[in-house]
């Protein structure tokens, strides 16, 4: 089991940009589900469970292959006007893509 949260900044990439017209969607092998027993959002993979902490689940839920990154950021900024959405969300999405969980 792995935990992941939007505040995790393990990324060492120097390029902080994400294509704003990228329309993130879950990778083929990844299933999103809410776990009622633990009260947590999860990503289920063939050999792994990822626990989405904090706002991570609500961000992943917006990755439907329709919305682009700009739209996801805009939606989250509307919901959380005081949060540093601009700074954190694109980096988080990039991290999930690097893991192979988003495409």
């Amino acid at each position, binding site marked *: *089991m*792995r935990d992941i949260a939007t505040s995790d900044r393990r990324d060492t990439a120097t390029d902080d940009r994400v294509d704003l017209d990228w329309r993130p969607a879950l990778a*083929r*092998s990844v*299933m999103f*589900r809410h*776990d009622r*027993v*633990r009260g947590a959002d*999860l990503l*289920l*993979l*063939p*050999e*792994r*469970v990822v626990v989405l902490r904090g706002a991570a689940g609500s961000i992943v839920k917006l990755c439907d292959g329709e919305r682009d990154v700009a739209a996801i950021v805009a939606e989250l900024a509307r919901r959380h006007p005081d949060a540093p959405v601009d700074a954190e969300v694109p980096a988080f999405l990039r991290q999930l893509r690097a893991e*192979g969980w988003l495409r």
Partner: protein
Amino acid sequence: MSEAFGVHGAQGGPDAAARPTSPPPPPEPPWALLAELTHGCPLRCAYCSNPVKLIGRSVELTGDEWCEVLRQAAELGVVQTHLSGGEPLLRRDLPRIVATADEAGIHTQLVTSGVGLHEARLAELVDAGLRSVQLSVQHADPARADLIAGARATGAKERAARLVREAGLPLGLNAVLHRANLDALDALVELGLAWGADRIELANTQFYGWAMENRAALLPDPDQVARARLTLERWRVRLAGRMELVWVAPDYVDATAKPCMGGWGAVSLTVAPDGSVLPCPAAAELLGDDAPNVRDHRLDWIWRESPAFTRYRGEDWMREPCRSCELRAVDFGGCRCQAYALTGDAARTDPACHRSPDHDLVRALVDAARGPAPEDHPGFAYREGGT
């Protein structure tokens, strides 16, 4: 098997010495369930970790019973199931079992030899909600694969891999490693690339069940393992981001106790074909008649309270050298089933650990191990028959 599910649970438990009389807190819910649907199998792999005496088909759980197990598992917190065996495709009611798991919110992976995975069969399973397939491979060279598997199966495996890819499901390969294939990792990885695998699990043989009968023929020497590790590292660099290569360590050779199952009754559970519930797929022998059964008890009681699951949960059971060892939070004392198999006492430190007082047992076996197996006569004993 031992790196079961790659689910690494956070284990912590209270300090036993500080709370000598209080009852143990309820355990965290399990994440995964290994469903051994049958012990029947068309292959007779030399490294098979199922028991020497297999469970007969006549005492297997019915489809209704499996569906009830999976519903109870979901309520308990299980989110992943590995439908395994034996060969799970021998169960005609497999699609129904998959559908029930999926409806209960459990991610399903089929763990198969590939024998019997025809196009219509796979389509049925995908319709039922199957999410992923793990296919066993024995060697990239068909003749040598046959010698390891005790059966001819490469053609069926290649077809199965193609069908899984065409169905759009993720494909994992599992190759159990030993003297007769550790020097052929390049070809195994190339096979995985050719077959379109997303992941290859390179799992050094763990010595349980039938594999124990073949231990001398399977156990590599440290040089052979070291060569394989170098090969693995080269491929990991080349395939970074393209294919995941998982290495399940050879605990005898490494002299290191594995964090077996992420701890006893900590992360996952196994249901054997006859409904007995085990903290580890190899625990049938250790538990004997003490193994609880889904025909007698509900799964939540089995997980939370049964003596079989509480016996080695946490750290209270540990003796020295585990009890004061800083590694106990990393390896949980190693494998109880291995301690039992090698010393007759399941509460001893896993003899694979170099700190174990019984480590000489393992050291002597590794010292006696000799390089690659002769290619055309690896010297394996096979199970009788096949299914």
